[in-house]
């Protein structure tokens, strides 16, 4: 008797299981046909790093401080930089990424002091040789480099002039103030917010 009950209970469980698969048979598939349709990539998705455009100079804002190169656990970034004339910091002349080594940990992006590192949008890179994954991150910016340096110089010059002018104005004011019985307190130039851009000092 018990055996018969067991068998029928088992058979019932099997039938109910078949019910589940049949229900799913008529549901809509969840597949995204990948090469035909692109998968949705989250906005924070980590991939090969890229240099981000900084609005005010029309190019990236890398100052070749080598912090990313130092922190990279896989040693896949190599940077060299020189300081152009009239620019207060270095500009990279080589920013290579060996993506074949990269583990997409994102430490370099975290550590970047000028927030100039971000992720590229591609997510299905493929290649036939290791050389295919040697990315030159400066490539897209090469054409704008001269212009960018020009702009930085321009900004630097303007800043210098402003500083000069301010100093001159302050000196004049001071002189005037001294002349007018030394009433006014001189303003500290250092206190002034220079540009609004983070940390770059442009």
């Amino acid at each position, binding site marked *: 008797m018990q055996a018969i009950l067991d068998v029928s209970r088992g058979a019932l469980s099997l039938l109910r299981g078949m019910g589940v698969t049949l229900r*799913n048979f*008529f*549901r809509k598939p969840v597949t995204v046909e990948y090469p035909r349709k692109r998968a949705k990539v989250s906005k924070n998705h980590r991939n090969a790093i890229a240099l981000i455009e900084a609005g005010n100079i029309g190019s990236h804002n890398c100052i070749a401080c080598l912090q990313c190169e130092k922190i990279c656990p896989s040693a896949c970034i190599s940077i060299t930089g020189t300081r152009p004339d009239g620019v207060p910091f270095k500009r990279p002349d080589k920013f290579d990424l060996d993506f074949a080594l990269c583990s997409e940990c994102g430490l370099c992006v975290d550590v970047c002091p000028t927030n100039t590192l971000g992720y590229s949008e591609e997510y299905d890179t493929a290649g036939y040789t290791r050389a295919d994954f040697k990315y030159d991150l400066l490539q897209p910016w090469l054409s704008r480099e001269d212009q960018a340096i020009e702009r930085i110089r321009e900004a630097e010059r303007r800043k210098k002039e402003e500083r000069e002018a301010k100093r001159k104005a302050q000196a004049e004011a001071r002189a005037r103030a001294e002349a007018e019985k030394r009433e006014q307190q001189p303003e500290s130039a250092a206190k002034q917010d220079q540009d609004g851009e983070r940390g770059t000092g442009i």
Partner: protein
Amino acid sequence: MVRDFTDIFGSTWLAAAASVAVIMAFLSVNSLMLIWMERKVSARMQRRLGPTEHGPFGLLQTFCDAIKLLGKELITPRHASTKLYLAAPILIFAPIIAICSLFPVSGNWVFRDYDIALVLVLAFTSMSILGIFAAGWGSNNKYSLLGAIRSILQNIAYEVPLLLSVMAVVLLAGSLNLRDIAMQQSGIPYVLLQPLAALIFFVAATAETNRAPFDIPEAESELIGGFHTEYSGMRFGMFFFAEYSSMVIVCGLATILFLGGWHGPVLPGIVWFFIKVYALIFVMMWFRWTFPRLRFDQLLKFSWLVLVPLAVLNLLATALVLKLL
């Protein structure tokens, strides 16, 4: 009036040649379509899409696969027993065409009408086990060997309930001629008179064809393909071909024995026959994509301690009822 191929062609040999052509054409297209169907059914049950690339609904996918298999290298393992290893796919494949010729697909349409067709079908379907054992032993691979041993035990375990359930039908019909058996079901199909026998038959048939949940001889997650582990390219293709063809055979047999063969309203008989066959095949696929695999000893226990006693009781009951009526 029976119209079989010997009547049409006049000569046995011509008729045989014509039958081979027709059956071979049907079977090759059929297995390719069944593989496609399997992939589509499994995909839909798992909420995937399945093949979509080649042809409409991916219909040509399996044709491409077949062509690819033809271009694959045939590797014979160094330590294999060459004769057995090479004979195995042939042994499995050879009886299939002959078995298919026995099925009456419509009231007056059968390749050759034999009075003992049922015995022939049962005998030759069991022959595939020889091929499986030759493959398993000949490969000299332990996984293959395990698969082969399991296969034999499974086949002999399920042969018995299969025969006993068929016997109940033979008792009712009083004939071993497949056409006669189907003819007698023009009113009520035997599945209504013999529901238990039909169930036992179908379960045993699923096991005979090594389909999940009874696919332990192949058991890709344990035995990595079991008896056909060492087979590559088209030799592996032959096993595949045989598996899907034998699905058609057992489902065709079930259709004739229990579902009334070609009988059905409105549509022509041959259409009804294939509708029933493919519906049964769909159920087999449905099994496969729903259940986990049984363990080997549970499988044997289930056959010997559940199916066989049930089949014996069913047979006795049938015999008793026949006497009472």
